[in-house]
């Protein structure tokens, strides 16, 4: 098991990528970023993150559909996903499929709460894998 948990941040907004990179790095996470579904596909299989932070509105694509497509291509269900939504107060994400672990965070989010949630998800995953 890696010392620092690796977080894959998938968001088409550069500012959000940078904010999360700074926030999570300073909180002890290794951060990898992706800006679109292609980069997401490349990096998720290459980097094997512990948690994925995924923007629901990924450009003109639905982030949840992109995620589901990757699952059918072999992406592990055990990797928790934190969905980011600027419309969290307005529209729910696609309901989760049974067996998946995910969280929903609305923008703008509280950094401390996000970090706490990520730690909890990582611990929970470590517990299942051990």
């Amino acid at each position, binding site marked *: 098991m890696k010392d620092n948990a690796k977080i894959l941040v998938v968001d088409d*907004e550069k*500012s*959000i990528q*940078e*904010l*999360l990179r*700074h*926030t999570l790095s*300073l*909180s002890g996470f290794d951060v990898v970023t992706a800006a679109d579904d292609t980069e997401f596909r490349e990096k998720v299989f290459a980097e094997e993150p512990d948690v994925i932070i995924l923007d629901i*509105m990924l450009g003109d694509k639905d982030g949840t559909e992109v995620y589901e497509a990757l699952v059918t291509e072999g992406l592990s269900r055990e990797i928790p996903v934190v969905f980011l939504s*600027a*419309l*969290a*107060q*307005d*529209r*729910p994400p696609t309901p*989760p*499929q*049974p*067996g*998946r*672990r*995910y*969280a*929903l*965070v*609305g*923008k*703008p*989010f*509280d*950094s*401390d*709460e*996000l970090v706490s*949630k990520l730690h909890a998800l990582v611990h929970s995953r470590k517990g299942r894998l051990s």
Partner: protein
Amino acid sequence: MIDIWDFHQYHFHGYCWPPLIVGILLAFLGLTVMIRDRASIASLVFGLLTFTGTIWLLGDAAIFSSPDYETAVFWARVGNSGVVFIPNFLYLFAVVVLQRFYRYERYIWTTFLISFLFFVSIWTTDSVISGAYRYPWGFYSKYGPFGGGLFAAYFFCLVFAGIQGYWVEYHRSTSVSRRWKLKRLLIAFSIAALGAVDYFPAFGFPLYPFGYVPVAVFIVIIMQTIWRSRLVDITPSFAAEHIMHAMGDLLLVWDRYGIVRLANRAAWQFFESSPSKIIGDSIETLLKNPLFDPQRCESMTDKDSLRQDEITLKDSQGRNVVFNLSTSAIRDGNGEPLAFVSIGKDVTAYKQVVAAVRRAYTEMEQRVEDRTAELRVVNERLQRLDEMKSNFILAASHELRTPLTSIKGYISLILQEKVGAITDQQREFMSHVKTATDRLQRLLSELLSISKIESGQFVIKMETVRVEDLLKESATIYKAEADQKEIALNLHVRNELKTIECNADKIRELLDNMISNALKYTPQGGRVDIWAERGAEELRIRVQDTGIGIKKEEQDKIFDPFHHVHKTGLAGEESTGLGLALSMKIAKLHHGNIEVESEEGKGSVFTLTLPLKQPSVVEEFPEIEVPKKAGEEEGK
């Protein structure tokens, strides 16, 4: 006594002819009336009256010409057999014409009985006819002093009773035509009564019995009256003829060979012809319609039902007139058709109205279609605008939140000194930035909520919620803030609140707004009380504070978006100006209301009223759930 039927033995002379001729004329009058007005009681009575008069006068002619006493006595009895019933029928006729038969029915039958007794007496005794006188003009009836006198008295009583009836009715009647008729009858019968002069020679006075003269005058007056007016009552045939000619519809009766046999006035007038020209004409030629050719007429005999045809004829001015022709068959006892009756109703105006209505309807349909098409275009445009607005709201929400996320995130990192220590002043400044950012976030959230509600995009999902739980939750959330400000925050439940149909999240938001406002504007040491009471059909929640209150002139505006009564709370909390506006929207979405009572310097009471049950809502938009701000959902 001679053979009474051997007329060669009679001595016909000048005195015999007048009564004979008048008698025959009287019979002719009676027959005319009876034939003209068949099945009429009055005509029958009149006919019988004239018949009895004829017997009397023919009897006189026979008496005058009798060759011997016995023959004369025989004819005296015959003649007076008619005479005894004359007063009877005179009286009966008066009663029938004056339409009082049923009132005097008993008297009528009594008079018939009396007349019959006299009739029997004439032929069985000598009390009425006791023999015959011989006068210069021939033999004449000899009345018995008792029987004859009695009969004469009876005669005059009934005659006068009849005349009196005419007299009274004449003076009572207000109709001009009826008065004219009654006057003629009165005169006629009064004159006829003068025929009673024939009683003089019957009692031995040698006066020539010229009673036939007033009877002749009677005949003339009656004929004139009949010619101008109906003497008798309304008979079915009389009524039928008048009805036929009074009809506005054409009436044609034609035989099975298609020849017109009868036509009414409406038909003459339409064809601008006379009855003589129409009658005898072919129905096919008249109606100019092959439907009515003789062969088709034959085929109509096969059908029992009324036949309806619509035909168009040209009137005298060449205009087309549409008739709805109803034709039925007149059949004999064996069911064979004898003739056909066609009644034509002018339906031209009706057809024109129907055509006009149809045109108007078609035009209206076209206009509705055109207007619907216009509305469809407008609706599509509005839908596009609505879509654009929705997309704008969504886009604005996304686009504004993204930079806001960055701002908040970096502020948090700086304030947490994750990128290095900061000075106190820097901390203070960053705190102000955070406060402003938080306000901006709240403003954005509330603005978008109001926009969605106003655009109709927001369809809340109702659920059954325990009211007390909601209230306790909100009170608990704000307890810490209240304690910090040293404000007493209390919840009072008046009665069992049970459950209510509402959207829990939105009502929670509304209550939070009301409580938060109360705390914001209540000074240290004050009170905020939450009262909840359940009524028969609604729930009332009052949030009462001892705060700074609201001016009277401001109270109408506090629910307007961006209206600030006070820019900040007593502790410097900034107000977005949308809280109460959003609260009112939420209340209205629940078919409820918020009212305010306030006095500046003393405090305010905000009362939320919500119906216990919501009317059924048809959801036009997909369900929209609002998860918590940083909520977590784990699927298993």
